[in-house]
Protein backbone atom coordinates (compact mmCIF):
# COMPACT_ATOMS: atom_id res chain seq x y z
CA UNK A 1 0.00 0.00 0.00
CA UNK A 2 1.52 3.30 -0.96
CA UNK A 3 -1.40 5.39 0.26
CA UNK A 4 -0.69 6.12 3.87
CA UNK A 5 -4.06 7.19 5.15
CA UNK A 6 -4.86 7.81 8.76
CA UNK A 7 -7.57 5.73 10.35
CA UNK A 8 -11.13 6.84 9.90
CA UNK A 9 -14.11 4.60 10.51
CA UNK A 10 -16.01 3.23 7.54
CA UNK A 11 -18.50 0.49 6.85
CA UNK A 12 -15.81 -2.10 6.27
CA UNK A 13 -13.53 -1.11 9.12
CA UNK A 14 -12.86 -4.09 11.39
CA UNK A 15 -11.78 -1.77 14.19
CA UNK A 16 -15.09 0.07 13.99
CA UNK A 17 -17.06 -3.19 14.03
CA UNK A 18 -15.10 -4.45 17.02
CA UNK A 19 -15.34 -1.15 18.88
CA UNK A 20 -19.13 -1.11 18.44
CA UNK A 21 -19.23 -4.66 19.83
CA UNK A 22 -18.13 -3.40 23.26
CA UNK A 23 -20.73 -3.84 25.97
CA UNK A 24 -22.63 -1.08 27.64
CA UNK A 25 -24.76 -1.35 30.78
CA UNK A 26 -28.45 -0.72 30.21
CA UNK A 27 -31.83 -1.27 31.81
CA UNK A 28 -34.95 -2.50 30.02
CA UNK A 29 -37.87 -0.07 30.27
CA UNK A 30 -40.51 -2.42 28.88
CA UNK A 31 -41.18 -6.11 28.78
CA UNK A 32 -39.80 -7.74 25.67
CA UNK A 33 -41.47 -11.03 24.75
CA UNK A 34 -39.33 -14.04 23.89
CA UNK A 35 -35.99 -12.35 24.58
CA UNK A 36 -35.49 -13.89 28.00
CA UNK A 37 -32.49 -15.80 26.73
CA UNK A 38 -30.55 -12.55 26.68
CA UNK A 39 -30.57 -12.64 30.47
CA UNK A 40 -28.46 -15.56 31.67
CA UNK A 41 -29.73 -15.09 35.24
CA UNK A 42 -33.31 -15.85 34.31
CA UNK A 43 -35.09 -18.82 32.79
CA UNK A 44 -38.16 -16.89 31.70
CA UNK A 45 -39.14 -16.68 28.05
CA UNK A 46 -39.75 -12.97 28.27
CA UNK A 47 -37.39 -10.22 29.30
CA UNK A 48 -38.94 -8.24 32.15
CA UNK A 49 -38.95 -4.48 32.47
CA UNK A 50 -36.32 -3.37 34.96
CA UNK A 51 -33.80 -6.04 33.96
CA UNK A 52 -30.23 -4.71 33.87
CA UNK A 53 -27.93 -6.14 31.24
CA UNK A 54 -24.77 -5.33 29.33
CA UNK A 55 -25.37 -5.26 25.58
CA UNK A 56 -23.16 -4.30 22.63
CA UNK A 57 -23.25 -0.58 22.01
CA UNK A 58 -24.39 -0.97 18.38
CA UNK A 59 -27.58 -2.41 19.82
CA UNK A 60 -27.90 -0.17 22.85
CA UNK A 61 -27.67 3.09 20.92
CA UNK A 62 -30.69 2.66 18.61
CA UNK A 63 -32.79 0.91 21.28
CA UNK A 64 -32.20 3.69 23.79
CA UNK A 65 -32.86 6.64 21.52
CA UNK A 66 -35.98 8.06 20.01
CA UNK A 67 -39.51 8.31 21.38
CA UNK A 68 -40.02 4.58 21.71
CA UNK A 69 -36.89 3.79 23.67
CA UNK A 70 -36.92 0.21 24.93
CA UNK A 71 -33.90 0.53 27.16
CA UNK A 72 -32.12 3.22 29.18
CA UNK A 73 -28.38 3.27 28.61
CA UNK A 74 -25.69 3.92 31.16
CA UNK A 75 -22.16 5.11 30.68
CA UNK A 76 -19.73 2.17 30.42
CA UNK A 77 -17.73 1.90 33.63
CA UNK A 78 -14.39 3.05 32.17
CA UNK A 79 -15.88 6.42 31.19
CA UNK A 80 -17.50 7.12 34.54
CA UNK A 81 -16.19 9.78 36.86
CA UNK A 82 -13.80 7.69 39.01
CA UNK A 83 -12.06 6.47 35.88
CA UNK A 84 -12.03 9.92 34.34
CA UNK A 85 -10.33 11.15 37.52
CA UNK A 86 -7.59 8.55 37.15
CA UNK A 87 -7.03 9.69 33.57
CA UNK A 88 -7.01 13.32 34.58
CA UNK A 89 -4.35 12.67 37.21
CA UNK A 90 -1.80 10.98 34.96
CA UNK A 91 -2.91 9.73 31.54
CA UNK A 92 0.60 8.56 30.64
CA UNK A 93 0.79 6.12 33.54
CA UNK A 94 -2.53 4.45 32.68
CA UNK A 95 -2.58 1.13 30.88
CA UNK A 96 -5.25 2.12 28.34
CA UNK A 97 -5.17 -1.32 26.84
CA UNK A 98 -6.61 -2.61 30.12
CA UNK A 99 -9.21 0.15 30.24
CA UNK A 100 -10.50 -0.87 26.86
CA UNK A 101 -8.90 -2.13 23.68
CA UNK A 102 -10.81 0.53 21.77
CA UNK A 103 -10.69 3.25 24.38
CA UNK A 104 -11.12 6.18 21.94
CA UNK A 105 -13.43 4.54 19.37
CA UNK A 106 -15.71 3.07 22.00
CA UNK A 107 -15.57 6.40 23.82
CA UNK A 108 -16.77 8.22 20.71
CA UNK A 109 -19.87 6.02 20.77
CA UNK A 110 -20.31 6.02 24.54
CA UNK A 111 -20.11 9.80 24.79
CA UNK A 112 -23.71 10.01 23.55
CA UNK A 113 -24.78 8.68 26.98
CA UNK A 114 -22.92 11.50 28.69
CA UNK A 115 -24.97 14.66 28.65
CA UNK A 116 -22.34 16.98 30.08
CA UNK A 117 -19.65 16.21 27.53
CA UNK A 118 -17.04 15.16 30.10
CA UNK A 119 -16.24 11.95 28.24
CA UNK A 120 -15.28 13.78 25.06
CA UNK A 121 -13.09 16.19 27.05
CA UNK A 122 -11.38 13.25 28.72
CA UNK A 123 -10.72 11.56 25.39
CA UNK A 124 -9.05 14.69 24.04
CA UNK A 125 -6.96 15.32 27.15
CA UNK A 126 -5.86 11.68 27.30
CA UNK A 127 -4.89 11.62 23.64
CA UNK A 128 -2.93 14.87 23.71
CA UNK A 129 -1.07 14.02 26.88
CA UNK A 130 -0.13 10.51 25.82
CA UNK A 131 1.04 11.53 22.33
CA UNK A 132 4.60 12.26 23.46
CA UNK A 133 4.87 8.74 24.82
CA UNK A 134 3.66 7.24 21.54
CA UNK A 135 6.12 9.35 19.58
CA UNK A 136 8.98 8.32 21.89
CA UNK A 137 8.06 4.65 21.55
CA UNK A 138 7.86 4.95 17.78
CA UNK A 139 11.24 6.68 17.59
CA UNK A 140 13.04 4.04 19.57
CA UNK A 141 15.30 1.84 17.51
CA UNK A 142 14.66 -1.50 19.13
CA UNK A 143 11.14 -2.85 19.22
CA UNK A 144 10.24 -4.46 22.49
CA UNK A 145 7.23 -6.69 21.78
CA UNK A 146 5.76 -5.82 25.16
CA UNK A 147 6.28 -2.13 24.71
CA UNK A 148 2.93 -1.28 23.17
CA UNK A 149 0.93 -3.19 25.69
CA UNK A 150 -0.29 -0.05 27.40
CA UNK A 151 -1.66 1.39 24.16
CA UNK A 152 -5.21 1.18 22.89
CA UNK A 153 -5.80 0.19 19.27
CA UNK A 154 -5.88 3.73 17.91
CA UNK A 155 -2.58 4.52 19.62
CA UNK A 156 -1.15 1.26 18.38
CA UNK A 157 -1.99 2.23 14.84
CA UNK A 158 -0.15 5.52 15.28
CA UNK A 159 2.75 3.78 16.96
CA UNK A 160 2.97 1.13 14.28
CA UNK A 161 2.96 3.55 11.32
CA UNK A 162 5.33 5.90 13.12
CA UNK A 163 7.72 3.13 14.03
CA UNK A 164 7.71 1.73 10.52
CA UNK A 165 8.60 5.10 9.04
CA UNK A 166 11.22 5.77 11.71
CA UNK A 167 12.89 2.41 11.10
CA UNK A 168 13.11 3.12 7.38
CA UNK A 169 14.62 6.52 8.11
CA UNK A 170 17.11 5.11 10.60
CA UNK A 171 18.18 2.44 8.15
CA UNK A 172 18.69 5.12 5.56
CA UNK A 173 20.65 7.25 8.01
CA UNK A 174 22.90 4.32 8.87
CA UNK A 175 23.76 4.10 5.17
CA UNK A 176 25.03 7.68 5.32
CA UNK A 177 27.89 6.41 7.43
CA UNK A 178 27.14 9.02 10.07
CA UNK A 179 27.09 6.41 12.81
CA UNK A 180 23.68 7.37 14.00
CA UNK A 181 22.65 4.04 15.37
CA UNK A 182 24.34 4.00 18.75
CA UNK A 183 24.06 7.74 19.28
CA UNK A 184 20.36 7.76 18.48
CA UNK A 185 19.56 5.10 21.00
CA UNK A 186 21.45 6.88 23.73
CA UNK A 187 19.87 10.27 23.14
CA UNK A 188 16.44 8.72 22.99
CA UNK A 189 17.00 7.00 26.29
CA UNK A 190 18.11 10.22 27.91
CA UNK A 191 15.16 12.08 26.49
CA UNK A 192 12.70 9.54 27.67
CA UNK A 193 14.05 9.56 31.18
CA UNK A 194 13.99 13.32 31.30
CA UNK A 195 10.46 13.48 29.96
CA UNK A 196 9.26 10.97 32.49
CA UNK A 197 10.80 13.01 35.28
CA UNK A 198 9.04 16.12 34.06
CA UNK A 199 5.81 14.22 33.96
CA UNK A 200 6.19 13.11 37.56
CA UNK A 201 6.98 16.64 38.73
Amino acid sequence: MSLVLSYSPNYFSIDDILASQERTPCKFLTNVPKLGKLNPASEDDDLAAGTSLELPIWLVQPLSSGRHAIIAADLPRIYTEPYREILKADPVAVDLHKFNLYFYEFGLYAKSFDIRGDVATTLIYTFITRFRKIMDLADNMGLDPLINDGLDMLERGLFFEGHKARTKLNNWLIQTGMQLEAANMVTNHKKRKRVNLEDII
Partner: protein
Amino acid sequence: MDDSMGEQFDDSDLNITEEVAAPTTQDFGLDDINTSDTEALTASQVIELMESAWLNEKFSPEILPHKTEIVDCLLGQISYMEENLENLESNDFQKSLHQMETYRLRYLVTSYLRIRLEKIEMFNYEILKQEEVREEKNEESYLSAGELQFAKEYKENLEQHFDNVLSFWPGLPPDDWKKEYIKPNLHSFVFLKSKTEIEGVIIDDGNEEDGDLVDFKNGSQMIISYNSVSNLVKKGDVQLI
Protein backbone atom coordinates in the same frame (compact mmCIF):
# COMPACT_ATOMS: atom_id res chain seq x y z
CA MET B 1 17.73 3.64 -6.03
CA ASP B 2 20.13 4.45 -8.78
CA ASP B 3 22.74 2.10 -7.49
CA SER B 4 20.58 -0.83 -8.44
CA MET B 5 19.80 0.73 -11.77
CA GLY B 6 23.46 1.36 -12.38
CA GLU B 7 24.36 -2.23 -11.73
CA GLN B 8 22.36 -3.32 -14.71
CA PHE B 9 24.80 -1.70 -17.08
CA ASP B 10 28.00 -3.49 -17.66
CA ASP B 11 30.06 -0.74 -19.11
CA SER B 12 33.17 -1.22 -17.04
CA ASP B 13 35.23 -2.01 -20.10
CA LEU B 14 34.07 1.01 -22.03
CA ASN B 15 36.67 2.66 -24.12
CA ILE B 16 35.62 6.25 -24.42
CA THR B 17 37.08 8.29 -27.17
CA GLU B 18 36.53 11.88 -28.02
CA GLU B 19 34.63 10.91 -31.10
CA VAL B 20 31.60 9.38 -29.46
CA ALA B 21 28.75 9.98 -31.82
CA ALA B 22 25.98 12.00 -30.30
CA PRO B 23 22.73 10.08 -30.39
CA THR B 24 20.29 11.04 -33.03
CA THR B 25 18.37 13.06 -30.54
CA GLN B 26 20.21 16.29 -31.11
CA ASP B 27 17.30 18.64 -30.66
CA PHE B 28 15.68 16.76 -27.87
CA GLY B 29 15.00 19.00 -24.90
CA LEU B 30 15.32 22.00 -27.18
CA ASP B 31 12.18 21.27 -29.07
CA ASP B 32 9.08 22.80 -27.71
CA ILE B 33 6.36 20.32 -27.03
CA ASN B 34 2.79 21.32 -27.30
CA THR B 35 0.84 20.12 -24.29
CA SER B 36 -2.15 22.20 -25.10
CA ASP B 37 -3.19 24.74 -27.67
CA THR B 38 -1.94 27.63 -25.63
CA GLU B 39 1.18 26.43 -23.88
CA ALA B 40 4.51 25.44 -25.33
CA LEU B 41 6.74 23.64 -22.89
CA THR B 42 10.25 22.28 -23.01
CA ALA B 43 10.84 18.67 -22.06
CA SER B 44 12.45 19.69 -18.80
CA GLN B 45 9.40 21.78 -17.93
CA VAL B 46 7.22 18.76 -18.65
CA ILE B 47 9.32 16.72 -16.23
CA GLU B 48 8.93 19.40 -13.57
CA LEU B 49 5.15 19.38 -14.02
CA MET B 50 5.15 15.60 -13.81
CA GLU B 51 7.13 15.67 -10.58
CA SER B 52 4.82 18.24 -9.11
CA ALA B 53 1.73 16.25 -10.10
CA TRP B 54 3.29 13.08 -8.67
CA LEU B 55 3.96 14.63 -5.26
CA ASN B 56 0.55 16.28 -5.12
CA GLU B 57 -1.14 13.00 -5.97
CA LYS B 58 0.99 11.15 -3.42
CA PHE B 59 -0.03 13.39 -0.55
CA SER B 60 -3.56 14.53 -1.35
CA PRO B 61 -6.26 12.33 0.17
CA GLU B 62 -8.54 12.69 -2.87
CA ILE B 63 -7.85 12.00 -6.51
CA LEU B 64 -6.73 15.14 -8.37
CA PRO B 65 -7.60 16.24 -11.91
CA HIS B 66 -5.77 14.00 -14.34
CA LYS B 67 -2.61 15.15 -16.12
CA THR B 68 -2.93 12.98 -19.19
CA GLU B 69 -1.29 15.53 -21.47
CA ILE B 70 1.82 15.61 -19.34
CA VAL B 71 1.90 11.83 -18.91
CA ASP B 72 1.46 11.23 -22.65
CA CYS B 73 3.99 13.85 -23.55
CA LEU B 74 6.60 12.44 -21.20
CA LEU B 75 5.92 8.84 -22.23
CA GLY B 76 6.31 9.96 -25.83
CA GLN B 77 9.68 11.46 -25.04
CA ILE B 78 10.78 8.32 -23.23
CA SER B 79 9.70 6.01 -26.07
CA TYR B 80 11.37 8.21 -28.64
CA MET B 81 14.58 8.13 -26.64
CA GLU B 82 14.38 4.37 -26.19
CA GLU B 83 13.95 3.87 -29.91
CA ASN B 84 16.98 6.00 -30.59
CA LEU B 85 19.02 4.13 -28.02
CA GLU B 86 18.48 0.90 -29.92
CA ASN B 87 20.62 2.31 -32.67
CA LEU B 88 23.52 2.99 -30.34
CA GLU B 89 26.33 0.52 -29.73
CA SER B 90 25.81 -1.20 -26.41
CA ASN B 91 29.19 -0.03 -25.17
CA ASP B 92 28.48 3.60 -25.94
CA PHE B 93 29.36 5.74 -22.94
CA GLN B 94 26.33 7.95 -23.39
CA LYS B 95 23.92 5.08 -23.79
CA SER B 96 23.99 3.99 -20.17
CA LEU B 97 23.36 7.54 -19.01
CA HIS B 98 20.40 7.90 -21.35
CA GLN B 99 19.09 4.58 -20.13
CA MET B 100 19.40 5.61 -16.51
CA GLU B 101 17.44 8.73 -17.25
CA THR B 102 14.65 6.88 -19.03
CA TYR B 103 14.39 4.45 -16.10
CA ARG B 104 14.12 7.35 -13.69
CA LEU B 105 11.43 9.03 -15.75
CA ARG B 106 9.51 5.81 -16.18
CA TYR B 107 9.51 5.34 -12.44
CA LEU B 108 8.08 8.84 -12.04
CA VAL B 109 5.21 8.21 -14.44
CA THR B 110 4.36 4.71 -13.25
CA SER B 111 4.46 5.68 -9.60
CA TYR B 112 2.07 8.54 -10.36
CA LEU B 113 -0.33 6.30 -12.26
CA ARG B 114 -0.20 3.60 -9.60
CA ILE B 115 -1.13 6.02 -6.84
CA ARG B 116 -4.15 7.09 -8.86
CA LEU B 117 -5.20 3.49 -9.49
CA GLU B 118 -4.96 2.79 -5.78
CA LYS B 119 -7.25 5.72 -5.05
CA ILE B 120 -9.68 4.62 -7.74
CA GLU B 121 -9.90 1.19 -6.13
CA MET B 122 -10.12 2.51 -2.59
CA PHE B 123 -12.63 5.32 -3.23
CA ASN B 124 -14.30 3.77 -6.26
CA TYR B 125 -17.93 4.72 -5.55
CA GLU B 126 -17.11 8.19 -4.33
CA ILE B 127 -14.90 8.97 -7.32
CA LEU B 128 -17.45 7.70 -9.84
CA LYS B 129 -20.20 9.66 -8.13
CA GLN B 130 -18.10 12.84 -8.25
CA GLU B 131 -17.38 12.21 -11.92
CA GLU B 132 -21.11 11.98 -12.63
CA VAL B 133 -21.71 15.26 -10.85
CA ARG B 134 -18.95 16.89 -12.85
CA GLU B 135 -20.37 15.53 -16.06
CA GLU B 136 -23.81 16.94 -15.25
CA LYS B 137 -22.29 20.32 -14.52
CA ASN B 138 -20.24 20.11 -17.69
CA GLU B 139 -17.04 20.36 -15.69
CA GLU B 140 -13.80 18.74 -16.70
CA SER B 141 -13.38 15.16 -15.66
CA TYR B 142 -10.80 14.25 -13.00
CA LEU B 143 -10.20 10.81 -14.46
CA SER B 144 -8.58 10.15 -17.78
CA ALA B 145 -10.59 8.12 -20.30
CA GLY B 146 -8.61 5.00 -19.44
CA GLU B 147 -8.99 5.56 -15.72
CA LEU B 148 -12.73 6.08 -16.05
CA GLN B 149 -13.05 2.81 -17.89
CA PHE B 150 -10.96 1.07 -15.25
CA ALA B 151 -13.07 2.60 -12.47
CA LYS B 152 -16.31 1.41 -14.06
CA GLU B 153 -15.02 -2.09 -14.68
CA TYR B 154 -13.67 -2.28 -11.16
CA LYS B 155 -17.08 -1.29 -9.84
CA GLU B 156 -18.82 -3.92 -11.94
CA ASN B 157 -16.44 -6.61 -10.76
CA LEU B 158 -16.87 -5.56 -7.18
CA GLU B 159 -20.63 -5.67 -7.42
CA GLN B 160 -20.55 -8.99 -9.21
CA HIS B 161 -18.33 -10.36 -6.49
CA PHE B 162 -20.55 -9.12 -3.70
CA ASP B 163 -23.64 -10.49 -5.45
CA ASN B 164 -22.00 -13.90 -5.73
CA VAL B 165 -20.86 -13.97 -2.14
CA LEU B 166 -23.96 -12.48 -0.57
CA SER B 167 -26.32 -14.82 -2.42
CA PHE B 168 -25.26 -17.49 0.07
CA TRP B 169 -26.69 -15.35 2.85
CA PRO B 170 -30.31 -14.79 1.91
CA GLY B 171 -31.04 -12.71 5.01
CA LEU B 172 -28.46 -10.07 4.21
CA PRO B 173 -29.58 -6.79 2.73
CA PRO B 174 -27.32 -6.86 -0.30
CA ASP B 175 -27.12 -3.17 -1.09
CA ASP B 176 -26.20 -1.64 2.24
CA TRP B 177 -22.49 -1.65 1.59
CA LYS B 178 -23.07 0.42 -1.53
CA LYS B 179 -24.61 3.22 0.48
CA GLU B 180 -21.77 3.27 2.98
CA TYR B 181 -18.93 3.56 0.50
CA ILE B 182 -15.50 4.69 1.58
CA LYS B 183 -14.73 8.36 1.16
CA PRO B 184 -11.36 10.04 1.46
CA ASN B 185 -10.84 12.08 4.61
CA LEU B 186 -10.58 15.52 3.07
CA HIS B 187 -9.61 17.01 6.39
CA SER B 188 -6.35 15.02 6.50
CA PHE B 189 -3.33 17.05 7.48
CA VAL B 190 -0.77 17.65 4.73
CA PHE B 191 2.51 19.51 4.34
CA LEU B 192 2.77 22.13 1.64
CA LYS B 193 5.05 24.74 0.16
CA SER B 194 3.54 27.88 -1.25
CA LYS B 195 4.60 28.80 -4.76
CA THR B 196 3.30 32.35 -4.56
CA GLU B 197 1.91 34.95 -2.15
CA ILE B 198 -1.54 33.95 -1.02
CA GLU B 199 -3.70 35.99 1.32
CA GLY B 200 -6.53 34.94 3.54
CA VAL B 201 -6.56 31.16 3.38
CA ILE B 202 -9.43 30.05 5.61
CA ILE B 203 -8.40 27.32 8.02
CA ASP B 204 -11.04 24.68 8.58
CA ASP B 205 -10.60 23.94 12.27
CA GLY B 206 -13.94 22.20 12.48
CA ASN B 207 -15.80 25.03 14.17
CA GLU B 208 -19.09 26.17 12.76
CA GLU B 209 -17.97 29.77 12.46
CA ASP B 210 -15.19 30.62 10.02
CA GLY B 211 -11.72 29.57 11.05
CA ASP B 212 -8.56 31.64 11.20
CA LEU B 213 -7.25 33.39 8.13
CA VAL B 214 -3.65 32.69 7.20
CA ASP B 215 -1.38 34.36 4.66
CA PHE B 216 1.22 32.35 2.77
CA LYS B 217 4.44 33.96 1.66
CA ASN B 218 6.14 32.68 -1.45
CA GLY B 219 8.12 29.64 -0.32
CA SER B 220 6.55 29.34 3.10
CA GLN B 221 5.88 25.82 4.34
CA MET B 222 2.91 24.71 6.45
CA ILE B 223 1.19 21.73 7.95
CA ILE B 224 -2.50 22.30 7.42
CA SER B 225 -5.70 20.42 6.69
CA TYR B 226 -6.07 19.46 3.03
CA ASN B 227 -9.57 20.87 2.59
CA SER B 228 -8.30 24.33 3.58
CA VAL B 229 -6.02 24.33 0.54
CA SER B 230 -7.48 21.81 -1.93
CA ASN B 231 -8.41 24.49 -4.46
CA LEU B 232 -4.91 25.99 -4.20
CA VAL B 233 -3.39 22.57 -4.87
CA LYS B 234 -5.55 22.16 -7.96
CA LYS B 235 -4.72 25.65 -9.17
CA GLY B 236 -1.02 24.98 -8.70
CA ASP B 237 -0.49 27.80 -6.20
CA VAL B 238 0.82 25.44 -3.55
CA GLN B 239 2.83 22.24 -3.79
CA LEU B 240 2.23 19.33 -1.43
CA ILE B 241 5.51 18.09 0.01
